[in-house]
């Protein structure tokens, strides 16, 4: 009797927990479902009241209209180019600096690390205007350079993050490789980077998402429609066709699908990586 009661209690608890989990999941997913279903509705149906959940008929023409109204393929390729360069740039420059800061002994190391930590506190909007003026002076306005060149000079957060990770790799490995005649750069690329794969993946995905979703930077630098990445193109779409909700939702769907694919493919490593960086803080 007693065992069956605790057994019942356990089941009730599990069912309640799953019910709560499902309700929250629905709240999290619903806006995305709404985005997708609206993108397949006709204008008439989108503005119907009470709203319908599932479209009467699948209207692909919202996507066709989107492709005709805006150079979406161009936007997409711009986003891919800018994002790829950002990921490569950040991973390369930050792993180099982080490795040197973690393992090599050189004058200026402490100063450099302190400077990196201080810049973490500066909101990037404060430095936005001088950086903008600098890029404008060298004739890079309305080009993609301001959107990816800075990545090749690293960033405080990424260097800090990777340095902590490199410090966790046994020092003996470094010293043994030196004895074997590898240069510090050789040790970084052949030994440390392969070992740091989870950290690099996390940082890479972080950079991908931040760069793909960035709005303010392209808004400031890009004037020509054909040079815009997807986010800026999407905000432009909103300005032009503010009442065509099915088409705008089609644009939103197109802009989030690549990020979602990358996220679902890497979510295991990614989610764990965020967890570690949180603990370190």
């Amino acid at each position, binding site marked *: 009797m007693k065992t069956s009661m605790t057994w019942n209690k356990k089941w009730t608890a599990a069912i309640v927990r799953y019910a709560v989990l499902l309700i929250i999941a629905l709240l999290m997913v619903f*806006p995305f479902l709404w985005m997708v279903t609206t993108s397949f509705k006709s204008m008439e149906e989108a503005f119907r009241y009470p709203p319908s959940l599932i479209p009467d008929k699948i209207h692909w023409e919202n996507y066709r209209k989107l492709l005709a109204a805006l150079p979406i393929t161009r936007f997409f390729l711009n986003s891919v180019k800018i994002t790829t360069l950002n990921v490569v740039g950040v991973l390369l420059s930050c792993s180099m600096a982080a490795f040197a800061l973690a393992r*090599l*002994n050189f004058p200026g190391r402490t100063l450099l690390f302190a*400077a990196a930590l201080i810049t973490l506190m500066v909101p990037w909007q404060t*430095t936005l205007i001088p950086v903008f003026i600098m890029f404008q002076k060298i004739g890079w306005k309305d080009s993609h350079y301001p959107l990816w060149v800075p990545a090749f000079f690293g960033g405080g957060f990424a260097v800090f993050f990777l340095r902590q990770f490199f410090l966790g790799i046994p020092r003996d490995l470094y010293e043994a490789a030196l004895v074997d005649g590898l240069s510090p750069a050789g040790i970084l690329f052949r030994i440390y980077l392969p070992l740091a794969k989870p950290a690099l993946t996390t940082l890479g995905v972080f950079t991908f998402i931040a760069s793909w979703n960035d709005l303010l930077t392209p808004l400031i630098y890009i004037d020509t429609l054909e040079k815009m990445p997807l986010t800026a193109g999407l905000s432009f779409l909103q300005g032009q066709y503010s009442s065509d909700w099915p088409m705008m939702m089609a644009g939103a769907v197109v802009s989030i699908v690549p990020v979602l694919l990358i996220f679902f493919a890497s979510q295991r490593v990614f989610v764990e990586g965020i967890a570690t960086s949180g603990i370190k803080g």
Partner: protein
Amino acid sequence: MSVRSYSPLGRLERKWGWLLCAPFALGLVLFSLGPITTALGLAFYQWDNLTPPRFVGLANWHQLFHDELFWKALRNTLFYVVGSVPTGVILALGLALIVNARLPGIGLFRTVYFTPVVTSTVAVALVWTWVYDSNYGLLNYVIEQIGKLVGLKIKPIAWLNDPRTAMPAIIAMSVWKGLGYNMIIFLAALQNVPRELYEAAAIDGANRFRQFWHVTLPSISPVMFFVVVTSLIGAFQVFDQVYIMARDGRPANSTLTLVYYLYNHAFRYLNMGYACTIGMALFVLIGAVTGIQLVLQKKWVHA
């Protein structure tokens, strides 16, 4: 300097240390230290980015203190911070407690809760604008249905077009979007709490609530600190969702935030100097709030 620095190994490490750090060090100067100094300097100039800058002393700062729109933007930003950070942190902790269980399929739930974090603010802000629509929006429809169930006739609310509801609506969207991020961080912290602590507390007769209050909370307080500080800094910089959901601070400047105001002055009214002044104010504000947190943490963070 140790003997090491004069040895061949010392020379090797020196050479490679400088080489490997060169891009990052150059970047610090070009994109952080240089610009922050320039921004500080420009805050004392009037400049339209076309004609040469003109030194105006403290005029920008004087203007800042008497600029009603700046204070409005500051108040709106503070409202956003106060409205979004505590709610976001508490809900994220609650969510982490719920998904901190060994249950089949729990990984799927964690992933789903994290999804809004990875999607662009622009895309989700667009859907939410549509959900908030006063005439055809889903939210008003749902509220109307609930009203019918309890026998009330609720008039449609003009969420984003009413100065009283616009900012709260943006806050709700932002909390929804950011929950998953802090949830994952809290989750990692929860899983790091030593099991023995709970066992000891249970032996002492502590119930679930007392265990949470006396074991869980103190154990995760360093992570709580990290989450609060990063959320505060992020909230002070809010821009994207306001740009999409309430362009130009509509309605009646009720959603104008500091970064939006800075953006307007720099890139629409071409007041580069004044925009830099706003930027420095933002820097000081964030620095002060972070500093206060650092002092206060001694009272509640168990490290």
